[in-house]
């Protein structure tokens, strides 16, 4: 019996991970491998792939000035969205975690945060038009109160509108992990800080923020990777005037240049992985979650 138990242990181990493997291999690993392979092949120009190895797809991508410009543009949106969703998300989570004593009310307010997700993304995008448009609610109100004479053009179909839409859409991804970290902070720590003579701001800076680092890191990963991997919001909210990394290779796909699109996708995956690694290096998420 002693000889059979290690092998049985090995088998039960495989059996335990098999459901995850069955999902991950066909739906995650395989597509990535296919994209990776395609990125090294030539296109026949009609959506077909020619089986000759080439680095031309990467060569073209990396030598093009457009690539850098696209990345800069997308990183700018990611950074702005990250910043605003972090600030808003942090304080909403703080309010929910520390000021709402009634748990039922906290759950209700949480649900309120998810209201934007009750409608489809497209309807949400369209809904911005009556609010931010030239004759939209905000412009009309500002003109009626006499604050401005001309409608503000930058409100809709602009970089501003893109960031507003992203922040609106993604702040919940900041709120949830940050709230989760905050909920685990012992209330007595805050009291101990006040007892030591700490100002309200310093309680935030020296106690709450350091203890919420893992939540901030998780939320940042969500927000940054979603913005970097999205093109729809940029396309709609900028009025088509602004391109994005994903938007560019989506167009490659539209003209059946699959290998070029694949190379762009691989590059984006690498850039994003590097960003995520960078965030994970600053916070040991695994340790903090295990606590």
């Amino acid at each position: 019996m002693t000889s059979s138990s290690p092998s049985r242990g090995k088998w039960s181990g495989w059996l335990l991970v098999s459901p995850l493997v069955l999902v991950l291999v066909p739906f995650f690993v395989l597509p990535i491998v296919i994209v990776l392979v395609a990125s090294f092949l030539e296109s026949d120009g009609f959506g077909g792939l020619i089986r000759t190895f080439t680095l031309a797809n990467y060569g073209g991508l990396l030598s093009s000035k457009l690539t850098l410009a696209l990345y800069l543009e997308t990183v700018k949106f990611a950074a702005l969205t990250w910043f605003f969703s972090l600030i808003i998300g942090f304080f909403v989570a703080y309010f929910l975690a520390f000021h709402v004593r009634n748990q039922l009310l906290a759950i209700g307010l949480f649900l309120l945060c998810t209201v934007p997700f009750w409608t489809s993304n497209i309807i949400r995008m369209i809904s911005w038009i009556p609010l931010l448009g030239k004759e939209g609610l905000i412009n009309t109100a500002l003109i009626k109160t006499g604050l401005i004479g001309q409608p503000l053009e930058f409100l809709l179909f602009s970089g501003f509108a893109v960031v507003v839409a992203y922040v609106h859409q993604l702040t919940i991804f900041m709120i949830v992990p940050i709230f989760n970290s905050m909920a685990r902070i012992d209330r007595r720590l805050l009291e101990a800080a006040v007892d030591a003579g700490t100002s309200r701001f310093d309680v935030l800076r020296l106690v709450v923020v350091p203890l919420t680092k893992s939540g901030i890191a998780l939320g940042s990963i969500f927000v940054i990777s979603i913005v970097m991997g999205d093109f729809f919001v940029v396309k709609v909210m900028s009025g088509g005037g602004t391109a994005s990394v994903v938007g560019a290779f989506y167009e490659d796909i539209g003209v059946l240049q699959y290998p070029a699109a694949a190379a762009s996708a691989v590059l984006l995956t690498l850039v994003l992985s590097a960003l995520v690694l960078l965030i994970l290096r600053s916070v040991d998420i695994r340790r903090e979650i295990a606590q």
Partner: protein
Amino acid sequence: MSLGPGHIELAGVSKSYDGQTTAVDAINLKITDGAYCCLLGPSGCGKTTILRMIAGHEEPTTGEILIGGEDVVGLPPVARRTAMMFQSYALFPHLSVRDNIAFPLRVRGRSKMDRHAAADAMIEKVRLGELADRLPAQLSGGQQQRVALARAAITEPRVLLLDEPLSALDEQLRVQMRQELRRMQRELGITFVHVTHTQLEAIALADLVVVMDKGVIRQAGAARDIYAAPRDRYVAEFLGGQNVFSGKVQRVNGVSVTLAAPELRAIAVPLGSARPDAGDTIDVAVRRDDIVLLRPGVPLADGLSSLSARVLGVEYQGNFVKVMLDALGPSEFVAYVPERDFFRDPHQIGDVVVAAWQADRARLLA
């Protein structure tokens, strides 16, 4: 008259969280500067609320709190110059021992060098030398307690407030840290107010023991007075070491009352300051170590009260033997017999004995 900086006075302090029930009910209490005071009572008796009101983490609904002669109600903890050591310590998990201890100085804007020097001096004082760079999670319970104590003491407060400081420790460590607390209090020379539900802790540490129940003070005084001369049944039972029984007053003469109860023969109890009338029901306490167990038939000396009982149980405690008797029916009646006396003529369970005590050792309770 000048009061010391750490003199605390509570005058008519009440606290109600919901406007209906009172957690603390019109408390008056004076703690002299440099005293070690223990607030003793079961959970929910209001002792922690009092501590938090002195600390400035709660405000009284009515009443005044004076520290060093000035009313501190409404002031934040810093302005009161109090420091609190929290239950389970509330150490900052992301800061090292040194940074935890230096934290109060950091938020006061002291330079890094300055505060680290002060923290290191404090670390020496609480004997944590080699652990300065560890995180709280890497420390034992006793070490965490020292860090908490050091963090509270580093601002040189005039009052240090301790909320159940020893409850998270195991028995052996508790006794050790108890001495440590007392040593620190003497070294710092400031007022300590210590909340506990363990009577042993309170009487071992405190200059002033305050026994609380349901938001009121039942008795406040020196540890020995509280233990040896409890004012009422509650205090006697909470502190332990007493047999408490009730009886009806039969006769009152100038110096003693004669008491009758169904379980016992008439016994005499000296009158204290109480003035009971014949027919009143009163409580009487007799210390468990004042009780002598005799064999039936042995003639009693003068001045002894006695009752006969059967032995229910015997527990060896090392330096004495705890003998449980059925003298009072369902309520406990216990004799603490010195070990050597017991084993000279051991009693077995079921033996009939005469429990006797010097009549003048019994106390009338309020």
